[in-house]
């Protein structure tokens, strides 16, 4: 298993959605599990999120979105990451949570989101997912 304290996670809230309790709970849980978590705060543009991922050299990006704008914002974030040569599941693990309907979730997974966590997902599930998912990243395979 990859040493958690060497894994940097960015938790971001894009768009105009101000409901940050979920994001903060997940951020804290990941910290308690031993990860290094960078929380961007609310009202982030996709560009700000991508720049943060780059400057913090993050291996994981958790996107929290409850505003319904996920099919606009998340694909944009993924596109911007790919433009900077950061490939989902190879260079970065992207997961998302909030209010995302199952059909959209399927679409997002095809685009590169590794997992979509709906409301009520246990923190244990999220932590175990991150543990497993980072093992497939290039940087930890070497």
């Amino acid at each position: 298993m990859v040493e958690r304290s060497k894994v940097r996670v960015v938790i971001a809230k894009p768009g105009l959605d101000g409901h940050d309790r979920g994001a903060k709970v997940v951020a804290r849980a990941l910290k308690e599990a031993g990860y290094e978590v960078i929380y961007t705060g609310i009202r982030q543009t996709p560009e700000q999120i991508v720049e943060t991922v780059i400057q913090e050299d993050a291996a994981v990006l958790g996107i929290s979105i409850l505003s319904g704008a996920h099919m606009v914002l998340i694909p944009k974030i993924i596109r911007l990451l790919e433009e900077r040569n950061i490939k989902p599941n190879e260079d970065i693990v992207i997961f998302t949570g909030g209010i995302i309907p199952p059909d959209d979730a399927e679409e997002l997974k095809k685009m590169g989101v590794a997992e979509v966590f709906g409301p009520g997902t246990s923190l244990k599930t999220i932590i175990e997912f991150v543990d497993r998912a980072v093992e497939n990243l290039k940087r930890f395979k070497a």
Partner: protein
Amino acid sequence: MESLDSLIKSALSGDKKAIARLITLVENDEEKAREVVRRIYPYTGRAYVVGITGPPGSGKSTLLDKLIKLARDEGHHVGVIAIDPTSPFTGGALLGDRLRMQRHSTDPGVFIRSMATRGSLGGLAKATNDAVKVLDAAGYDLIFVETVGVGQIEVDIVKTADTVVLVTVPGLGDEVQAIKAGLTEVADIFAINKADREGVEMAYLELKMALEFEKEKWEKLGWEPPIVETTAFTLKGVKPLWEAVKRHREHMEKSGRLKERRAFRAREEVKTIIASTIASKVEEKLEKGEAKELIEKVVERKLDPYSASQIVMEKLKEELGG
């Protein structure tokens, strides 16, 4: 994975992804850190380092957010290393300083990196120094290092900065804490933030009194630390704080003190690296079978700790000398 060569080349030309990768390397990998620093060192030396410290909740990050704007307006390329504590229980960290400076994330002339203390004082000092070098080599000419606290760790991190700003908040009694931690001896500028709160006059007086004790020293050095009242949220006092930083820089450069401080920093860095290397070797040694037997003897009162350490040191001397 990119080769170290191409990574360094990209970082030196300003590629942020490469810069970030290098910082991760120097944080995580002892051997690679050595190699990276060796190669980028000739490109360092231009950056001016400002340390910002103070207790949690004093508004350092918000102040820094405003200072970055002023620095950018004057054409600086600004690097920021924001340090937050690692939980001693879980080994994880929640790095939230960046939150207050996020508007600068997309500014090509700003690089913000969050760093966790990771539980080893020597390790943190080394990682911070090395990260500063990477940013310096990559072209960031003004680098802020923000640490939290009023304790020894924070003093050690910032005392090697060129200018040290101590931020306190009225009413928390931090001024007393700061005095106790020796920060009043180290700080070049004091900022009383959230100056719209009650107790600002008291805070000012307490700091002023503490500085009275150091009066002779400051007079000899030619710099009396100013106490600036700021309310970062409304921008009040922020320009005067920035002006104070610039004035201090001018003083450091003109008086020759900057050279002294840099010599001090170089000495501290070498010392830290040596201490950290030896500490690792000692850890390694104590894990091996022979040393474990020695420890058992100490527990059984057959050997005292000093004699035991003497034996280990003899072995180490052989190894290091060989």
